[in-house]
């Protein structure tokens, strides 16, 4: 059952973040970026589909990815809080996507060597996608930070607002420690240093300032979410819940 919970964390991170990115569809500042954001959203939702699908199979109670995505309550979601924050302005979206993608790339690079064959396969495919996300968003962080006075201010404000949500990505509990010891999962706490190094490099090049470490917000992994997740799920789940069992 522990792998079921781990897959929930991985899957929910990507499902919620994919949903936040999809909110830009039709609203991005330029056409190419609208397509890019939708592409990234689809990548993430696709990864969530595979991860939650595997979770449902392991649970063995007949719940597929749709059942897990659309018919769970907010308190049952296990995503980190950083992915459920509202999309904010373009700088906030790019900065959040950059911070999360660097973490995700480091995680998936190691997870593709998991002793669980299905999970390793999903991770290998997802790793290629996320490497691109990290490259795309790092380029935007550079352009926004080292851009105009306004873009610099917005990028710094985004970084300052997001920083307190970043540490949760590296939390490890006994469940994950056991899975990591068995070679199935990745010990996320090992990623903190390389993540910090990569993020600092890009932030410095963007003439931005890495925020001073502060009180770190956490709770998503145990179902304690911000006030934003409920509203997100209301939008995301309304159609499935209005017409349960509908197919097209």
């Amino acid at each position, binding site marked *: 059952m522990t792998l079921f919970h781990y897959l929930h964390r991985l899957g929910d991170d990507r499902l919620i973040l994919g949903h936040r990115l999809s909110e830009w569809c039709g609203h991005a500042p*330029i056409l*190419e970026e609208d*397509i*890019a954001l939708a*592409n990234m959203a689809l990548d993430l939702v696709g990864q969530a589909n595979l991860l939650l699908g595997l979770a449902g199979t392991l649970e063995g109670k007949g719940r597929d990815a749709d059942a897990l995505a659309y018919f769970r309550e907010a308190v049952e979601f296990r995503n980190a809080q950083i992915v459920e924050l509202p999309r904010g302005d373009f700088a906030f979206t790019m900065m959040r996507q950059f911070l999360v993608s660097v973490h995700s790339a480091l995680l998936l690079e190691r997870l593709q060597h998991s002793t669980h064959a299905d999970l390793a396969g999903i991770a290998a495919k997802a790793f290629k996608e996320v490497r*691109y996300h990290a490259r*795309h968003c790092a*380029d935007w962080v550079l352009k926004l930070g080292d851009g105009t006075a306004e873009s610099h201010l917005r990028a710094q404000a985004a970084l300052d607002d997001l920083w307190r949500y970043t540490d949760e990505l590296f939390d490890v509990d006994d469940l994950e420690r056991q899975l990591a010891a068995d070679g199935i999962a990745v010990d996320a706490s090992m990623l903190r240093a390389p993540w910090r190094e990569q993020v600092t490099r890009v932030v410095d090049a963007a003439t931005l300032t890495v925020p001073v470490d502060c009180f770190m917000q956490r709770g998503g992994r145990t179902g304690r979410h911000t006030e934003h997740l409920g509203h997100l799920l209301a939008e995301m789940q309304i159609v499935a819940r209005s017409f349960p069992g509908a197919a097209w």
Partner: protein
Amino acid sequence: MHDGTTAGTDGGGDSQWPLWEVFMQPRPGAPHEHCGSVHAVDAEQALLNARDVYARRNEGINLWVVPAIWITGSTPDDMGPFFDPANDKAYRHPQFYKTPRGVKVY
């Protein structure tokens, strides 16, 4: 910009970012084919935008992006002088050789 490669500004009062033409190589060894254009501020962004816009459905394996202003093209007026004289000179066409078996023609 960051990599030192910027396109010149688009002439004609265009309020968009500079225009880049995109060429895609569909298979290994095949020539790059023009597949469209993107707007971007520098080469890296043009490449990323081209990947997002034109490379999502297995269209190819390699991309080139070129600032549109660096492309010089013939005009419709040139069609006569440039291309018509070739039509009635059959002795210039390589049609009288047999291609050896096993030689790949793309």
